[in-house]
């Protein structure tokens, strides 16, 4: 079964935008969530990230991230109220506990835990949208001129891990097909077989890469590296159905990367910059007025409300526009 967080090609501005634009746009949400503690702003960031996900057609990823985020938030609240007994409003006294000492459940610790949980949840939604909407191959291609070997390693992992998962499923099926009378196969045995097969495959891939010259020089053509014939093939041609499928189609020469600049890029770069700029300006103007201790104080001034409204609106950026 395919993970809801796995990238699925869909028509839409966020998917069509270059990875850099998508990272700036979604990264602005994550950065704002880590810059702010005000619950209104955090909630606005969460709503914006969810709206972005729904607008980009990644509703299932958002829903699952929400569920996971809520569970994590609840866990954080529980841990926080048990380990932190600060705050003026004592709701419950649980006496002395081993390791924890005196445990007082306070409203302030609960709110602080909820804020930490909300922040984690918001980050999870943003990463879920990123994962479901941004093509990882394009991200790796973008990374290639900066860190060629890292991009290569990541590309290999992104391909070899699903292959290993499929191998494991096949091995399990094969074990089951031996019939009910056969001795049970333990997980350790299965893992050993899987590891042996994966190592064989890894050696094959390494040999192929070596034959193609990856071990000899840098991949960066701009620095005079030597590339194989396939490396020199323009990306468009590598993708061509007339060409045999390549293990690393996305690692073509860097000159093809500018082709992915789309008309949506400017929009996402602008929205991301506006959100981040407004968030930083808001910090200096006191829009993050919140403290849980010693008593809860939440600032809901015009600056906070305006920033929250702006953030929520920014979540509509990936909506498809019909001409």
């Amino acid at each position, binding site marked *: 079964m395919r993970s809801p967080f796995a990238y699925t090609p869909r028509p839409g501005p966020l998917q069509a935008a270059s990875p850099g634009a998508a990272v700036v746009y979604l990264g602005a949400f994550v950065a704002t969530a880590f810059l702010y503690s005000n619950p209104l702003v955090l909630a606005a960031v969460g709503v914006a990230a969810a709206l972005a996900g729904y607008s980009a057609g990644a509703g299932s990823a958002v829903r699952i991230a929400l569920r996971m985020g809520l569970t994590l938030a609840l866990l954080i609240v529980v841990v926080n109220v048990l380990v*932190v*007994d*600060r*705050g*003026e409003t*004592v*709701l*419950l*006294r*649980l*006496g*002395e506990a081993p390791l924890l*000492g*005196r445990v*007082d459940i306070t409203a*302030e610790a609960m709110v*602080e835990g909820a804020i930490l949980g909300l922040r984690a949840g918001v980050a999870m939604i943003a990463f879920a949208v990123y994962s479901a909407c941004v093509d990882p191959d394009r991200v790796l291609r973008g990374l290639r001129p900066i860190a060629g070997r890292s991009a290569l390693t990541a590309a290999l992992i992104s391909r070899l891990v699903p292959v290993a998962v499929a191998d494991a499923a096949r091995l399990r099926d094969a074990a089951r097909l031996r019939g009910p009378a056969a001795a049970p196969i333990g997980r350790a045995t299965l893992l050993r077989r899987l590891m042996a097969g994966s190592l064989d495959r890894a050696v094959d891939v390494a040999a192929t890469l070596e034959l193609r010259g990856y071990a000899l020089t840098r991949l960066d053509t701009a620095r005079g590296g030597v590339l194989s014939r396939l490396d020199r093939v323009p990306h468009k041609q590598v993708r061509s159905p007339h060409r045999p499928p390549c293990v690393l189609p996305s690692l073509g020469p860097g000159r093809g990367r500018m082709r992915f600049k789309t008309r949506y890029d400017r929009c996402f770069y602008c929205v991301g910059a506006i959100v981040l700029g407004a968030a930083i300006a808001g910090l200096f103007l006191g829009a993050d007025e919140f*403290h*849980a*201790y*010693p*008593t809860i104080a939440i600032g809901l001034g015009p600056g906070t409300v305006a920033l929250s409204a702006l953030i929520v609106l920014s979540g509509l950026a990936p909506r498809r526009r019909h001409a």
Partner: protein
Amino acid sequence: MSMSRGTAAAIALLSAALAAAGCGFGPGSGVGEVSLTVTRDYGAEQVQPPTSDEASESDTVMRVLDREAKISTRYSGGFVQAIDGLEADERFGHSFDWFFYVDGVEAPVGAADFALHGGEAIWWDYRNWSAAERVPAVVGSWPQPLLDGYEGKSHPVALECRAAGAACAAARSKLAAAGVVLAAEPSDDAIRVLVGPWARLREDPAAAQLEQGPQVSGVFADFTREAGGYRLHGLDEAGDPARDFGPDAGLVAATRRFEAPPVWIVSGATAAGVLAAAGLLDVAHLRDRYAVATEGGPETPLPVRPS
């Protein structure tokens, strides 16, 4: 029916066990009055009038302060940043912060973690701590900790007179007047009150810390050897000599060596000085003071303030 009776009995037993373990809803019942003093500059000036408040089972130093004053905190509510708008700060290369003492002893934990048991004297002071990061004990909560102990435990009080003569009797009488019961035998967990001329008291390892300066002893005073005797010097907040007291000066101070109980020092360069110091053992002279010195007349709070 028997099942429901069993369940009810189990619930009742569980509730009783939880109540016995100190569990319950809300802050809990009262445990006694606590007093709160908020000052600045080593007790030189009161930031707000002293108050007393009924403490509850769940009360901490931070909760009492929050009820009585307008505060802001940092490090997730663990440390006090400001009281009544007076903020921790760096000025002219000196660090100013809020410190608190419970029953005259520096707390080993933060205010949010210091549980109260009722009867405590809490003292918050905003001071320059450049010269002495730690002042482990002060005399300003007299008669605490001599009367009821500290950190929720009572400690015996041992009066140790070393060639003190009349001063020893004066100190004994002052302690008795404050309700302090003296232990018959010295013990390791006793709060010691040392009375005697400095030439004798300096043989005690805890008292000898005074000669290593305020950064070790927390006492802004120094006895220097001069012409076969000792002379008392008052230090300022920076730890520099600021005042040379007369030949018959006396000193009342408190210090602490490692985690041992506090040691009170009632001393002077001469017998007259020691007697003068013993005369200071009362609320009127010690209230809100870190330590005091006297030349026979009115006491001088230490550290010495610029005139």
